[in-house]
């Protein structure tokens, strides 16, 4: 196993014929990819299938990774295109910041997430469920900033937007997340603030 190696070292090993070394990258990034995909496709089974496809695509195109950016940044471009392709195939709206339909779809899942929350009453579960109630654009930027530990500059690069736009989008996403938490999980939020 290649757990002690950094991403570029693992990639070199894979490109030099040690295909099993790729497992190191899969283990390292499976949660990152799965979380991003789940927040876009909003179904665990579909997310798992798309995430698997992403790792296969990444493997096949590994020779194209030149190390100019972080592996996670490069991987994100595959995540994004794969999710958009999947959503198009499923004839789902591929989201926009103010898309009411997406917001309605997210709200409609509220009951399911709340039921889940009863089982795992914790702050983390609340945050996770609140993120799932956001529209995919908001959930995506929050995941990239907090979970993928991407800087605003890196986020701007992968989303092909200006740094300031990324900053504003992150700010709006957090504001909406806070509103979701206060609306849907009022009691839990009250406990946290007090």
């Amino acid at each position: 196993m290649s757990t002690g190696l950094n991403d570029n070292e693992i990639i070199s090993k894979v490109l030099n014929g040690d295909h099993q070394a790729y497992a190191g990258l899969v283990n390292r990034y499976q949660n990152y990819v799965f979380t991003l995909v789940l927040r876009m496709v909003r179904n665990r089974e579909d997310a798992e299938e798309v995430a698997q496809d992403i790792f296969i695509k990444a493997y096949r195109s590994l020779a194209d990774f030149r190390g100019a950016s972080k592996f996670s940044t490069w991987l994100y471009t595959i995540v994004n295109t794969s999710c958009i392709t999947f959503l198009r195939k499923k004839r789902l709206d591929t989201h926009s910041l103010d898309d009411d339909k997406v917001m309605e779809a997210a709200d409609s899942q509220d009951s399911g997430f709340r039921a889940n929350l009863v089982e795992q009453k914790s702050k983390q579960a609340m945050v996770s469920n609140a993120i799932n109630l956001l529209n995919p654009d908001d959930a995506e930027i929050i995941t990239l900033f907090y979970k993928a530990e991407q800087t605003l500059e890196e986020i701007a690069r992968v989303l092909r937007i200006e740094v300031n736009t990324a900053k504003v989008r992150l700010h709006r996403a957090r504001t909406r997340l806070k509103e979701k938490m206060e609306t849907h999980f009022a009691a839990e939020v009250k406990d946290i603030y007090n």
Partner: protein
Amino acid sequence: METNLHHMNHDMEERLWGYIDGTAAAAEKTVIEKLLATDAAWKEKYSELLEVNQLLQASEMEAPSMRFSKNVMEEISKYHIAPATKSYINKKIIWGLSFFFIATIVGFLIYGVGQTDWNTGESSAIADKLNKIDFSQFFNNTLVNAFMVLNIILGLFLLDAYLANKRKQYRNEA
């Protein structure tokens, strides 16, 4: 009144997020620190946002099924790593195609200029000078047609070379 309050609140949150993220400029940082020390509303909002920030930082990512990694490794054993895009894009073909399209555009432009009747409309110094040039001696329909045919033939040659290259590559991979 309510709108003003909303704007103030929005502005406060935006500035506080900048402070929390560490993206605020040094002068802005000092101003916010002063506000936090003196203004209760700012202090309260800061605590709220800080709490949200900490919750987000502590939140865990979703995990796929236990078999996920194994499934991926089983799947990739069926595939090969594709050669880097750079290695199979033949620059000569790209340059050839560029030349073909540029030559076509230039050909059309020359043809267009050749067809223009410079005697209509108001005459200008440039038009007068152009009128004095006898284009017909350099340029006629036969010449343009020959030029276009040459371009088409050149284009077909390039297409053939590109397809032959692709076929060869496919055979090598197989």
